[in-house]
């Protein structure tokens, strides 16, 4: 229950608060009045005033008031009913002398809340008395400008209506913002304008910051005269050239209303059919203005970004930790007032492995009286290509401080970026084309499976070639070669292979020796055949055994052969053949068959001996 009450109370408070907030209490008074002028000060509230506290007035006397008035209106639009209540208290005052008339704050209680107005200062000048104290109300540019009228007619002097182009500063440095205000001052009623030419700001970057649709005339004191003034245009200028820069003046033709008929002889019909006013055209000109623009002093720091004014720097990351191959960005914000729109981007240095992309700029500033105020944000998108903790070095940025007339360098703190391991390289959406192409190719691929089975471990650094084992194996091969060679050679000797191999040669020798004998055999000359055989055999053996032909005795031949280790069979065969030949030389028996048999025998014997000797 108590809880519910609390809620209700809160709700009521809230509703009440919002209800109170709707109320307003304002004061309306002219800014400048003539010394003899009677004027009004009106306090207006949009709610029932329960207690109105009068202001105290100094410098003016209260002729009447406060006189309350009440206005209530009800509107029904599309069945929606809005009620409006306006309660006003009007004072009629007259200045007591030139100077400033002050009206202290008045307060009123609306509902349960007390509202207080501001203190008002009213300038009192020595001007002509004007009718209708309140003249600051709105007037359409084309409509009647309820201005103070001059009694004289026809001639409009340059003092009656003029244009004024004023600058906030006339001595500036290049890039320093200036506010230029184009104002129309008039003392005569104006019916309209023609052929308006606004000033041309050559050598400046200019931006209109106020272009009122309606011209609001405000009373203003110019050299002791009350004028109605209106702001036509307000410009923000940023000098781009140095030297004396002239501004081409603004020009316009004013249609001024001039009373035509003398105030005396006016009939009622004249009043009815003729307004009694004539339009006179008056060309007015704001006059040339010159602005001295000095160039920025020399010695600008390297990080100078053409900024003139007063700035601060803020460097941060869009995210503290970024995944590898994903985009992050470094956000550099330059805040302050000055030529924000023309400043250049600060240079940032990213770690070597970051890919830097095109910088983005976003503006958040407004054109104000102090120049361009707000911030300019530079966003540097990057993609880190590998993981780790990186440090972005401090960003430096310099500007020219107009107030202290020197360059100021701002330096941010270093920013740490943590790059975490990225997802699969393939899935990174922000990859550059070439790499992703390459990576996609391996998407369906995987490494081959491990090898199983015997691992075949060996101690590190051990190789077969050059090892002891290797040389042992080589030595074994050589040894095996030698062994087989010996074995084969011995076996060949045993098999007589050696003799056979020599046979061919021996055979040749034998045939050569027995060549003549062969001829005799073919001619069937028995005696010369055997003689030749005998001679050949002896000649051969004497050559082979190096025995003198004279010492050729059977015994010496036999002994020498035995000494040379000729086999016994061969010796005997040789000796037999020698004997046979000797015998056959002198005997006549035996035929051709015997000769050829003996011949073959001789060949065989010589060949055999050749093998053994």
């Amino acid at each position: 229950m108590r809880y519910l009450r609390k809620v209700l109370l809160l709700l009521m408070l809230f509703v009440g608060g919002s209800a109170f907030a709707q109320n307003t209490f304002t004061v309306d008074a002219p800014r400048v009045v003539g010394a003899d002028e009677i004027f009004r000060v009106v306090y207006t509230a949009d709610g029932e005033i329960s207690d109105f506290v009068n202001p105290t007035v100094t410098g003016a006397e209260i002729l009447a008031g406060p006189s309350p008035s009440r206005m209530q209106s009800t509107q029904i639009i599309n069945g929606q009913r809005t009620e409006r209540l306006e309660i006003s208290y009007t004072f009629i005052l007259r200045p007591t002398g030139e100077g400033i008339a002050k009206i202290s704050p008045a307060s009123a209680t609306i509902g349960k809340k007390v509202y207080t107005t501001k203190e008002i200062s009213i300038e009192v000048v020595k001007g002509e008395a004007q009718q209708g104290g309140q003249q600051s109300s709105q007037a359409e540019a084309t409509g009647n400008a309820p201005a103070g009228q001059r009694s004289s007619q026809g001639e409009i002097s340059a003092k009656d209506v003029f244009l004024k182009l004023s600058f906030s500063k006339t001595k500036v440095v290049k890039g320093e913002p200036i506010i230029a205000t184009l104002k129309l001052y008039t003392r005569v009623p104006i019916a309209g304008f023609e052929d308006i030419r606004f000033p041309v700001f050559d050598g400046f970057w200019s931006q209109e910051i106020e272009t009122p649709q309606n011209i609001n005339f405000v009373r203003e004191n110019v050299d002791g005269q009350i004028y109605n003034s209106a702001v036509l245009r307000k410009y923000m200028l940023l000098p781009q050239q140095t030297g004396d820069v002239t501004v081409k003046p603004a020009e316009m033709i004013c249609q001024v209303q001039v009373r035509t008929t003398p105030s005396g002889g006016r009939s009622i019909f004249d009043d009815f059919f003729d307004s009694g006013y004539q339009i006179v055209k008056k060309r007015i000109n704001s006059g040339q203005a010159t602005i001295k623009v000095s160039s920025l002093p020399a010695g600008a720091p390297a990080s100078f970004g053409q900024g003139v004014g007063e700035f601060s720097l803020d460097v941060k990351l869009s995210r503290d930790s970024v995944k590898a191959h994903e985009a992050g960005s470094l956000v550099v914000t330059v805040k302050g007032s000055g030529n924000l729109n023309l400043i250049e981007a600060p240079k940032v240095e990213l770690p070597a492995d970051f890919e830097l992309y095109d910088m983005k700029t976003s503006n958040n500033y407004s054109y104000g009286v102090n120049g361009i105020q707000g911030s300019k944000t530079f966003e540097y998108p990057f993609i880190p290509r590998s993981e780790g903790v990186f440090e972005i070095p401090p960003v430096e940025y310099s500007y020219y401080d107009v107030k202290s007339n020197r360059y100021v360098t701002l330096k941010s703190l270093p920013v740490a970026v943590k790059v975490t391991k990225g997802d699969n390289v393939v899935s990174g959406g922000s990859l550059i084309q070439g790499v992703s192409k390459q990576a996609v190719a391996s998407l369906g691929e995987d490494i081959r499976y491990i090898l199983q089975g015997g691992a075949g471990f060996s101690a590190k650094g051990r190789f077969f070639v050059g090892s002891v084992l290797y040389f042992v194996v080589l030595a074994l091969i050589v040894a095996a070669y030698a062994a087989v060679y010996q074995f084969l050679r011995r076996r060949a000797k045993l098999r007589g292979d050696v003799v056979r191999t020599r046979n061919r040669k021996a055979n040749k020798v034998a045939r050569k020796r027995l060549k003549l004998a062969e001829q005799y055999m073919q001619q069937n000359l028995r005696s010369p055949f055997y003689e030749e055989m005998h001679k050949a055999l002896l000649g051969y053996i004497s050559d082979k055994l190096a025995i003198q032909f004279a010492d050729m005795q059977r015994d010496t031949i036999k002994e020498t052969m035995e000494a040379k280790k000729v086999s016994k069979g061969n010796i005997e065969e040789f000796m037999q053949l020698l004997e046979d030949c000797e015998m056959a030389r002198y005997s006549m028996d035996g035929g051709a068959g015997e000769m050829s048999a003996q011949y073959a025998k001789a060949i065989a014997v010589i060949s055999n001996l050749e093998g053994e000797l």
Partner: protein
Amino acid sequence: MNHKIKYVFVALCLMIAVNLSANSNGLLWNSANDAYSMGQYETALNDYLKIEENGVHSYKLYYNIGNAYYKTGSMGKAILYYEKALKLNPAGEDAKTNLQIARLQTLDKIEVVPEFILSTWIKEIRNMISSNGWAYVSVALFAVVALLMLLFKFAPTTGQRKFSFVMACIVFLFAIFAVIFAANLRANANSEDEAIVMVPVSNVKSAPNATGNNLFILHEGSKVEILEEAGKWCRIEISDGRQGWMQMNDVEVI
């Protein structure tokens, strides 16, 4: 007498120890392979590395370590071990394939200076089998030379002898080449002049100190050739011919 017994005992113990370690290596090998097949790559990797710590190596071991590193996402290490495997057995087709796949994941794409075509061919032939393979081939060829020489000595006809002599010369030449290849591969495997970058990013500087100018950066998995070492720094060359100084900690020798 006592001494002798002691020696015998020590020798016995050593033999047992060697046997045991061989056994434990085999067990580790099997359990690691099982873990890998179940997808427990970290466990498998630990077991493989334990085998390596025991002081043995083999092509298969390095290859499997490379696979385990690849699966756990360490590309630099994977590449290192594939390279190690290929050093032991340059003919390893699996290691070559996996090395290529692992290289796709690295960032650096370094232009390779083209080599003289003949040396490329010779290298290709050399890399067809491992150092030990060439050694076996050379032994076999020397045996053939011996056989042919015997034939030359004892062949029955001149033609056969002439043929076997020419053949023996040719085969001897081949055997010499095989020995050269085997020795060359062994020298390559023992050399420590190549390394893989192990850190995500490494600055290559113009001088062996931290203040040197940055010449270029290398990423994990890139292969460099070590030209010389100076303290904690080494002078490296990459395959397109550029040189610079790098910290030794950033690389691991193959």
